[in-house]
């Protein structure tokens, strides 16, 4: 169920123009320490490419 929710949310956020790469979903098992690090590296690279978030961000 969670995955269905995330699948639709990701599509929807992308649709309204929030870059899809800002919301990332994945699965990492307890034995995948290496994968965890790679996911963080990958996510960081993707988000870095997009630059700082500006949309939907509440200014204080």
């Amino acid at each position: 169920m969670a995955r269905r929710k995330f699948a639709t949310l990701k599509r929807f956020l992308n649709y309204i123009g929030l870059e899809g790469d800002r919301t990332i979903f994945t699965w990492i098992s307890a034995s995948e320490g290496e994968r965890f690090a790679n996911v963080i590296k990958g996510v960081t690279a993707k988000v870095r490419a997009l630059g700082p978030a500006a949309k939907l961000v509440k200014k204080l």
Partner: protein
Amino acid sequence: MIKDSEKIGAVMVVGSGIAGIQASLDLANSGLKVYLVEKDISIGGVMAQLDKTFPTNDCSACILSPKLVEVGRHPNVEILTRRTVESVEGEAGKFKVRMTKAPRFIDLDKCTGCGDCAKVCPINVPSEFNEGLSERQATYRKFPQAIPSGFAIDKLGTSPCKAACPTHISVQGYVALIATGKYKEALKLIKKDNPFPIVCGRVCNHPCETACMRGKVEEPIDIMHLKRFVADLDLKDETRYIPEKKESKGKKIAVVGAGPAGLTCAYFLAAEGYDVEVFESLPVAGGWLAVGIPEYRLPKDVLRAEIKVIEDLGVKIHLNKAIGKDIPFEKLQKEYDAVFIGCGTVNSSKLNIPGEDMQGVIHGVDYLKRVNLGEKVFLGDKVAVVGGGNVAMDAVRTAVRTGSKDVFILYRRSRAEMPAAPEEIEEALEEGIKMEFLAAPKRVVGENGKVTGVECTRMELGEPDASGRRRPVEIKGSEFIVPCDALIPAIGQEADLDFVPKESGIAISKWKNFDVDPVTFASNVPGVFAGGDVVTGPQTVVKAVYAGKEAAVSIDRYLKGEDVKAGREKDWTKDLADKADVSKVEKVARAKYPHLKPEMRRTNFQEVGVGFSEEEAVAEAKRCLACGICSECYQCVDACIAKAVIHDDTFEEEIIEVGAVIAAPGFEVFDAGLRGEYGFGLYKNVVTSIQFERILSASGPYFGHVQRISDGKEPKKLAFIQCVGSRDTSCGNSWCSSVCCMYATKEAIIGKEHAKGLEPTIFFMDIRAHGKDFDRFVNRAKDEYGIRYVRSMPSTIKELQQSKNLLLKYVQEDGSLIEEEFDMVVLSVGLCPPKEAGKLAGALGIDLEEHGFCKTAMENPVETSRDGVFVCGAFGGPKDIPETVMEASSAAACASGILATRRGTMTKEEDLPLESDLRGLGPRTGVFVCHCGINIGGVVNVPEVVEYCKTLPNVVFATDNLFTCSQDTAVKMGEVIKEQNLTRVVVASCSPRTHEGLFQENCEKAGLNRYLFEMANIRDQNSWVHMHEPLEATEKAKDLVRMAVAKAQFLKPLKPGQLTVNHATMIIGGGLAGITAALSLADQGYESYIVEKEPVLGGNYRHLYFTLEGLDTRKHLSGLLEKVKASKLIHAYTAATIKKIEGFIGNYKTTIATKDGDEQFEHGVVIVAAGGYEFDTKEYLHGQSSQVITQRELEKLIAEKDDRAAKANSITMIQCVGSRIPERPYCSRYCCSEAMKNALKLKEMDPAKDVTIIYRDIRTFGLKEDFYKKARELNVKFIRYDEDRKPEVIQEGGKLSIRIFDPIMNAPVEFKTDLLALSVGTVPNPENAEIGQMLKVPTNQDGFFLEAHVKLRPVDFATDGVFMCGMSHAPKLSDDSIVQANAAVSRACTILTKDFIEAEGKTAYVNKERCAACGLCEENCPFSAISVNIAEACAEVNTVLCKGCGVCTASCRMNAVDLNGFTNEEELEQIYNI
């Protein structure tokens, strides 16, 4: 019989794989104390090594870890690692178990599992966990999630080098440190025991090298020169190593003689904080080192440098001060607190031959002293030196250097007996020195009182003397004269003891040496100690050092008023690590030690040895075999801030009393090397299946990348060879290992998922997919993954030279020979009895069966030959994980059945203080930031984080701890909670997964509700992963703590819900499983209600007559039924159906309809044992021809000696009728065994009977394989068919004809048969769906019940309080059902034994005002824990069933459901604080 009141309410579980763990948990959760005994350092068994598990491909570590943690934290399970059971005395109910505890060398109470010790450990050994595909350190943890999480050190004993060295330096240790480039550490390690590495690195007689095991391979390690290498580095270093000096003790010690013994003694005493003064009669310090050993061997400047360190340590050396002459000995005794005499042997021994007083005769000691003190001494051109020791060598080589032309040795024995170091002799010969052997001087010949020659006699070698050398015997009349200008006798030295007045009373031995205690070096006069040559006569430097060191210990003890001798005698030869087989060690030549060339050195005193370069030294050090495994380099001791390392830990004996024992030692993987034709160990790309499992694992040696060992490349063609070490009488393993077909399929699938291009082929004999959902898995492997299955066993493997590819030769089913090339081969190795099976069986007093597995009872596969000792898992025969888990629970049930009345007598429950009243206090948060030694503090600026915490809202207290998990910190934390009135506690340290429970306990003990606690993970997820970014890591730590503090202010104190438990059980179904469960429950003391819809109990078991193994099932069943009848605790309703089941775990109310009307009863749990049915087939003329019957009917004919069977000459059986077809793609598991059973019975009736079995795969798994073998031996015929080429059965009058394609003949065959028996499979009970609905439990796609987890919870449902057994679960054999029934009882007992069930604290709750009762939560909840109350129009949570997963909360649009401990408010607050 032991009386109930005398029984011990504890059980010992031997072996801690998944079987041991499951048994322990079941027992501990039902009120018994458990000792979980493991020979290894941690629990987990083979399952921890597996990557995934079939058929669901769940991650093995993921499903095992929670179990490990649970058993590790269980208050009633005591894990005893490194234990061996030696004997079990007594009887069921009260056993006395004797065990040996092997040392772990690390104190588990102190070890925090940080791994700093492993980081500094220089020893690399193959990792057992990774099956030798990677290395680990000598100090290690088997795998990251291991329990106990603490480390252990592997030691095989003392390495021979260390034992042989008189000073017992950790030789292996410094060699290992050199190998890893840690030169300073190496030097420090040497200096711990010997302050003279510069000297001993040059002139030692190195007994270590003599002992070195490498010597058995080719040559010993050049240990001495490795020592010189690090000593020279230190010498050249700007800051030389000087040991830390302890605080001054204000006591004075005098040392007589500045030789190696005296200076060593001074060195160690100075380091201890004593004021030491050394008195030396010569103008130089060093004793024999300075005036005996020539410059070219030990340059004076390096010696001075070595001694300077001793002076820098504070030792005062007074030169030219002769005791007895300049200062009276009595003065020393008076003015100093202790005296050590180490003045050596200064007088030369005389030859005692005529003419020894002539000019030109100069004794070795005197000669060397004069030269060494700088005197120019020329002895003439021709010089004879008498003697074969090192002094003789020194003298003769010095003589060459002082200008004599013709210099030679006279020695009365042969070269082999020369006591001088071999390299000395070698170097002397290189320098042109001649040696006259077997020549003894008789008389000095001279003119005018001046030497002109020496008369010698020839000797020959006689019998060995006391020293072991052959005694020289004079040959009469063989005198001859050797002309010479000078004669240097160098045959020994003697001590000069005259400086000590007789009145002092110091005892002197008959050899004119001081007579002191050999261990303490204490003389008979208090405060006077002596050591070195003055005690032993002329000996080696290293022995003098040893004496000095030991005397220093004695003096220290003496001055502290302690027992000088206690505990000091140690037999170094006792635990010698010299047993290793070195025959297979690869030969590597010893490094050649660089020397000056003879022509370069012959005429001067330049040092002969040049010393190793760094490269040479490291290479030489790497030759070390690490005999002891741990090198005792003590790096771990320094690295361990928690001070957990105990290098002198020892073996201990333990005795424990228990009421029952469960043996679960698991299995041994077959040694693939025994199947030589497959080249394992020879060809790099041939690996075992367990190695491949590690290759696949994300935490394995290659992080889950599938690669070849030879070149690291990803393989394309991968072959699995099945039955390696199984079904193979050639290696003595006739059994089937039961699991290999499935794990090979799994490994092939996972391999393909990891490496997309992989093309796996599985070579097999029969595919044995006899478990639940296994055939489906194999079908998926074939259809979805394209995995190729080849029915053939390769005969040989050959490696191709260039590519390292492997050429497999195999014969196809039709007889054709194929050669096929593969990139990599996996050998599917079988399961064997554990290596220690015999010893363990002896200790436990149980019998083994013929193959070495545990012998078990036919009526109950967990019973051994000894009452009160049970078995589970692969020790009782090879089996898969779920069967193992079932057996474990089953064994637990049997053990607790004996001890039912003693529940709760040995378990502990903690008394907790009342919770403090927090009303009106608001969030007062205390933050504890952990350094974790240097694990956090070394990266994160902890004090800065603490200061930051103090600025956060609601924080009233913040501090740092070295180890927050230590016992003293726990106490401190409790005090702070009380003093500061804390209402929230935040710990910033490691992972809540491992430590939350511990810290919560601390809170609880201080009266704070455990749910007012929060953690920030600043180690595992911060300092360890950002080691090179301290600034960022510090900022991240602050953020993480801020988030935790922010969340903490919203935490609420929680009180887990409680529910009363009804202690009765309803059992649905009265077949074998049902009645077994009822009887087992009665043993436990619990009532049960059996609801059976048939008019009689017994189910399918009624139709059986015997089992394959030979059990008389009729007798067995009638015995069981009698017991059921006799039991007051069992209420059996026959011809009854269930009308309604209300309630949930602990509180069920069920209404049944019986022939006498409705009945209602209450119960706490439900066991579903609804059974299955024989498949009713119309195939193969069944129902049409009277000659076509089912296997069950055939059994009846055989048992009742019916003519139809007795007179049938030919009987044919067809397997898989109705099983393994698209409509029912599962195997019915028992049919092959049933066919084998009936075939053997028929052959028993008449061996001439023609019995044919038509099959698809023969699945006589485990030890049943022997019966298949027997059937083949008895000439039962086997013809295989494929699913798409089924046999045809034709009735022609009174005869049946079978038409079938025979794949071996590669042709169709037809034969007649008198009787045809069909092996029809099992279909699920059609009522399963209905029962499932009533109990809110699911069935699988085949209609059998679906367990909570196919591997680890095979008898549980996801819904608590409901269990299953027997054919409800899947088709199975009768003994499987018995095991599973007992297992279900064991699981049920974890509830029934309690008066209350406690819920999780962190459960969901409903805000009624918001709930619109839409029911989405109910549909989403995996545990049936939340449901809509229709009357209230609102959802309700059953907190006992709720597992706190929170799925309901996120599915609720209204936010009407929230989760305690993870409320929306708490989670959002964290998000706001990122």
